[in-house]
């Protein structure tokens, strides 16, 4: 009949997820908060990847950033201050099929979570790790964070932060087995989307530092940064993220940077005269602790019993 095979069909997905399908509760961040744009970008990336909400987990710690799981209509884990990464690693270890996002901030990740930050980078489990870096403790009302600019007045350093800020990029790029390191700003939506999307596609721990506005406590600093794209350096390369010419033209400074070149990445990160935006480093082949350790996950019951018996034989007398 009409020469068509009997099983002909249009290739229509049974389920199509819109951005609303990933949107949870109404966000309760301040008006103008950079977190809102990051959330939208995450919803977009989920939509474009058509990841199933029931196979997606958003994990966080404590801070403004860490409210994100409440605003996702996926599995959500709002955990302890500084401790999102171990929980995310635990989930990934046991359920490698789940798509895992980690939302954390400069205080949550770089200060109290510093130890887990370093070790999770080396474990390189498949997580998309977003650092909402506003350079201040927002939720507890304006205390100095590790990335607060030196001299900036806070409630804990009223005459100005005493030390130079921590450079999260040089630290991250110094960790063995790190596999994906990128930086962006929250107020450039196309760039933010492309970088989060690339991070999400990478298999391994994708570290994305998002330099982010806090209109409540850092308004002037953020505004100056936002108004002055000459302080940014856009990294371009075939292996990096691709953005429209219109986006490229927003930035005066460009540099062709091959993300597989660690030495060059470290040099860019070390130079704090400009804020690099783009993918600094990408190694798709770095070893993954989740893959190395979950070899027995799908073992049949008979094999499990044999294995356990063999292990217990050593106690036999």
């Amino acid at each position, binding site marked *: 009949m009409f020469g068509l095979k009997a099983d002909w069909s249009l290739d229509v997905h049974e389920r199509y997820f819109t951005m609303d399908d990933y949107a949870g509760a109404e966000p309760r961040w301040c008006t103008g908060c950079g977190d809102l744009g990051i959330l939208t970008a995450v919803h977009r990336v989920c939509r474009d990847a058509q990841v199933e909400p029931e196979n997606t987990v958003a994990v966080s710690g404590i801070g403004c950033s860490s409210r994100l799981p409440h605003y996702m209509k996926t599995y959500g884990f709002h955990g302890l*201050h500084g401790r999102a990464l171990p929980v995310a690693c635990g989930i990934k270890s046991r359920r490698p099929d789940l798509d895992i996002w980690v939302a954390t901030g400069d205080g949550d990740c770089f200060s109290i979570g510093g130890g887990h930050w370093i070790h999770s980078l080396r474990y390189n489990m498949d997580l998309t790790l977003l650092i909402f870096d506003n350079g201040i403790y927002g939720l*507890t009302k304006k205390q100095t964070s590790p990335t607060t600019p030196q001299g900036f007045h806070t409630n*804990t350093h009223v005459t100005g932060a005493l030390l130079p800020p921590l450079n999260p990029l040089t630290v991250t790029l110094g960790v063995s087995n790190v596999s994906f390191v990128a930086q962006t700003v929250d107020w450039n939506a196309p760039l933010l989307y492309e970088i989060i999307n690339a991070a999400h596609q990478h298999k391994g721990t994708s570290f994305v530092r998002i330099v982010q506005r806090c209109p409540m406590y850092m308004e002037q600093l953020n505004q100056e940064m936002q108004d002055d794209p000459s302080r940014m350096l856009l990294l371009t390369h075939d292996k990096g993220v691709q953005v429209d010419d219109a986006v490229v033209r927003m930035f005066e400074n460009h540099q062709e940077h091959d993300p597989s070149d660690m030495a060059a990445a470290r040099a860019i990160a070390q130079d704090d005269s400009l804020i690099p935006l783009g993918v600094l480093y990408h190694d798709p082949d770095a070893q993954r602790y989740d893959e190395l350790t979950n070899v027995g996950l799908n073992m049949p019951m008979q094999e499990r019993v044999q294995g356990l018996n063999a292990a217990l034989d050593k106690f036999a007398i």
Partner: protein
Amino acid sequence: MGLEFIDGNQAIVRGAIAAGCCFFAGYPITPASTILQYMLDQLPRSGGVALQAEDEIAAIGFCIGASMAGRKAMTATSGPGISLYSENIGLATIGETPLVIVDVQRQGPATGSATKGAEGDIQFSRWVTSGGLPVIALSPATVAEAYELTYRAFNFAEQFRVPVFLLSSKEISLTRETVDLDEVNLPGVLERPRMEEGEIYQPHAFDRPEQIPALSDFGAAQVTRYTTSTHDKSGYLTTDPAVIQEMIDHYAAKIETAVDEICLYSEDLQTGADQLLLSYGVTSRAASVAVDHMRSAGKKVSSLVLQTLYPVPEQVIRGALAGISKVVVPEMNMGQYRLEIDRLAPDGVEVVGVNKMDTTLISPTEILNQGDLL
């Protein structure tokens, strides 16, 4: 100073500085953050050092180091931070380190309600670290008491070479009251016992178990060492069970034999009363209103308000329970200190709890109704 309008956290900072505190370290956490902020502002002006640490574990570690270097040290946090302090509190116990730990309690467990009140860390303070050795824990009910008890906490820490808890709460720490701190009656400032130069140094020396060993500050004339492991009086590692038990008995005895000295309370016992309201912390303020109400209704009732929760003022509690048939214990937790009263109350005495931890204060009416006191 005269009259001032200050909150409990400011009073805690003032009490600490008055007691000679010259080192503070902390990490932001509501409702204790303003102690960190006040300290960072005020301590350097009075010749001290205040640090914002990268987390709570570092904060208390800084304090132990500063204390062993001879400086009176304090840290302040809330329930989640106390959890992180836990192992270092054990270190301060085994190392006999003077230290004041402020817990501005908030509703828990875990992150709980960060900006809401509770007094849920009572037994937690007592059993906060492995080994379960006695601690000292003081509980203020007013801004003036926050000042006084912080001051006394430093004295106890120095006198007994122990970590001392100040169990404040969100309501006391963040509420302003009119106070005149000059009017607060304080004892003299105490200093830890220190070694004389030239003595053979034993950092944990004692003849009787309750004796407090003299310290030699790091950097002072007498070289010393400090260890987290079981050790003898010289601070040398030991596996000798007899020596280990002797040291454990010492850590306990120095607090247990000084209960009378450590116990702070206020009692308002009425002759012929057969009901007792036993309270502490912010809830004692509702209890005092309830007592007034009962008395104006012609009821006889006694009141005992504890400032020292640990060591448990057993003699004082037993004394207040004499002739009582019912004791009502209101607490912003599910009945933690009532466990102590249960074990102390003679047979036949009814022990009734008025408990909630829904983040709101217990009202006098709730005490009267749930305690069936009218």
